[in-house]
Each structure stands twice: as C-alpha cells, then as structure tokens.
C-alpha cells in the first residue's frame, strides 16, 4: 500500500528543523503542521500577510480579519506579525523563508514543477505558487506518485504548463522520498509496504536507487 495523505505529511514534518520559517500550501502541505513536535520552535508564514499562524480559533474567537492563504479562519501564534502582500513576497522571493511545502500535478527529473493549470480546463490561477518556488531556499513537493490510471507524475519532462523551472530538490510522494539531483530522481526512502523496484517501475522519469535506500519510518 502506498502512503495515505497523513503519512506523507508526517514524513515531511521530519524535514522541518528547529527555528525554521515555513510556508505550507493548501491540501496535504497544510497537514504537515499537525506533525511538527512542540519541541521544535517554528514560525508558519501565510502569504496573505501573517508570520506566526496559530491553530484554528474557538468558535467564539473567530475573526473575519484573521485568515490564512486558504481563506480559513486562524489565530495568531506567540510572536506573530502582520504585513502587507508586497512585504510578504519580499520574504518569499528574497529567500527569507526556509522551507516551502506545496502540492504538484507533475515534477520532472530536472526539478521543474507544474501545479496550476490543465489546458482545456478552467484555469483558477497560480496564486503565490510561482513566487514560492522561485524564492524559497528549500522546496519540498507533497504529491501522489501516479494518477488514478497509474500513470507516473514524476516525469522525464513536465507535460503541463510550468510553475517553475529547475527549482524542486525533494519530493515526498505516497511511494517514497525522492531527491531531485543533476543526475535525475534518486530514491532515498520507500513506503514500507512497497519495494524500491516497485517505486522505480511506477516512475517515468530517470530514477536511480540510492545505495543506502531504506524503508520510510514515522
């Protein structure tokens, strides 16, 4: 069995280091926050202008002037600050955010990512994704390894319109943990119920298996 969404989030949380400023995208990335141990001191950045996102509010504390980038009502964490959208993206584009986690429709072996547009379908827009992949020091992609027909989403070359070029260094999929290197995908860890060979077989892009490959642990 490949991993479920929660397990992907749980594994990504292990990459978050004490003292990090982190931007979490919508979907699986948002779940990562639930698995960061309280022993680590981190600040979550929301691109609509909040550094220090707290938990969801109690019903009595809901404030329409306090939302995250997914437009959900949130609270402010201790030490939080508010700022305008230009300052927010100065943080992002300027490389001041340590880690960005976002979803993807496709990533290719050169580290290019597509996650905002499917030609012929209604285009909703890229939001802040293009700025985030262009600016964060470290971008981790949380994604499904294959589509519902079993086709690989880790491609030789992205087929969908790109969000960013050569900017992804690490993927955590439901199949494993994959580094994106100049030599293509490198499988570092695989889902406990799978084998490295199964991950390889489910990957279209060029992939090698790390010599020290191991099953994922949580």
């Amino acid at each position: 069995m490949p991993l479920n969404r929660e397990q992907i989030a749980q594994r990504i949380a292990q990459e978050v280091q004490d003292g990090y400023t982190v931007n979490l995208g919508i979907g699986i990335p948002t779940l990562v926050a639930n698995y960061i141990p309280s022993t680590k001191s981190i600040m979550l950045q929301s691109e609509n202008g909040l550094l220090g996102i707290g938990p969801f509010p109690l019903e009595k504390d809901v404030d329409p002037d306090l939302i995250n980038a997914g437009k959900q009502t949130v609270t402010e964490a201790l030490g939080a600050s508010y700022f305008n959208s230009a300052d927010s993206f100065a943080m992002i584009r300027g490389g001041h955010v340590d880690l960005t986690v976002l979803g993807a429709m496709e990533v290719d072996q050169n580290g290019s990512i597509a996650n905002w547009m499917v030609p012929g379908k209604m285009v909703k827009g890229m939001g802040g994704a293009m700025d985030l992949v262009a600016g964060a020091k470290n971008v981790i992609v949380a994604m499904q390894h294959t589509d519902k027909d079993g086709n690989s989403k880790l491609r030789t070359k992205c087929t969908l319109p790109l969000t960013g070029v050569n900017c992804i260094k690490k993927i955590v999929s439901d199949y494993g943990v994959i580094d994106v290197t100049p030599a293509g995908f490198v499988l570092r860890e695989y889902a406990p119920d799978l084998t490295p060979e199964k991950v390889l077989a489910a990957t279209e892009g060029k992939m090698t298996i790390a010599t020290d490959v191991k099953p994922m642990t949580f």
Partner: protein
Amino acid sequence: MIKSKVYANAKSALEGIKDNMTLVVGGFGLCGIPENSISALKELGIKGLTCVSNNAGVDDFGLGILLHSHQIKKMISSYVGENATFEKQFMNGELEVELCPQGTLAERLRAGGAGIAGFYTPTGVGTPVAEGKEIKNFDGREYVLERGIVGDFALVKAWKGDKFGNLIYRKTARNFNPMVATAGKITVAEVEELVEIGTLPPDQIHTPGVYIQRIFQGKNYEKRIEQMTVRKA
C-alpha cells in the same frame, strides 16, 4: 488647517469613475475588501471596468457582485477560483483575464505607486507568464521584466482612518490594501472608523494620508468569511 478629504458616502466619493476605467482594488479573498465602494459601483452602473485585484470575489459578494451585473470587462488577478459567474463569463469569452503571480501582482502595484515603470523578478521565468516578456540574466540567473500598474482609481478598505487619510489596517485585512492605496491616480479609502486628525498614533500609521485623496466612513460591514474553520474547546 489641513484640507479635509472627507466625503459623505461611497457614491459621492466615487464621483468621476467612468466606463472603461481601470480600478485597482484591495483585499485578499473577501478579507479587507472595500465593500461599500463595490456596492456603490453596482448602483452607479459603471461598465467596461478593468479591475486589478488579487481575487474576483465569490458569486454574490466582493467583486463577484460586479461580475454578476456584467460591469467588469477584464480582471488582472492571481487566483480566481471560487466563482461560478467568473467561470461562465470567462468560458463564453465575455470576460478577459490576465493571470499574474501573487507576489508579482503585489510588486507591480508597489512599483506603480512608487514611480517605477518596471522591475525584474525571477518569478515565472520559463512559464507561460513570462511569454513575450523581456528576460535578462543577472549574476547567472534569469529574471523577467514586469511592469508597474497605476489605476485611474484605487479603492481600499482600512480599519481606522483620519480626515487627512492616514490609515491603519487590522490583522490580515491589510494584505494588498497598502500597495493599492499608492497605485491610484485618485485613491478612495473607506474605513470602519473615521476619526479626527491627531487621534491616530503617528508611529502606527500604515498608509500615510498623502496617498489618499478621498475618505469616507463605511457602514454595514458584512465581513463575510469564506472558509469558517474552528477547533473544539
């Protein structure tokens, strides 16, 4: 004595907005949007508008109100989901859309207001948004030239404002409003609380009054929540 910029209501403050003008509008989702000005635009029936705003509202609120009444010709936005009216008008060719990365949009407004014609950003290089634009290499990395934006009118919403136009925003309702405030030939601010000059602490002003030409006391703020999320006690 400082000349007062105070208008009685939204309708009078929007005097001079004409068909086919470009409006830059503050807000993120439905948070910090100029609710009163949007309602007044609907009432005034001004058409053919180009609206520069991060989002396009929802079907029956925010800029969605003006989409519904077919008053918007073109949107320049970063994210326009959550709106079926938008989708329908876009698909049938009635509505023109220019999608712009969120950080680039914020910076285009900041640049426009700051007298900067264009700037180079790494965002979007190699993607559809860079097509047809100048690419320049700095220190081994490619950047795309993006243009500043100035609107005929800018519409912003603040928490508190004084009669000179000094503004203070509240929490994440700040978002695009400070840049939008600088990027209008005429900027109209609506506030939840309009106070006398000298009331707001000068050290805590987010938008200095020089950017604001007109200000009015807003009313009946709905502050609709798009995604209500709560935890249990």
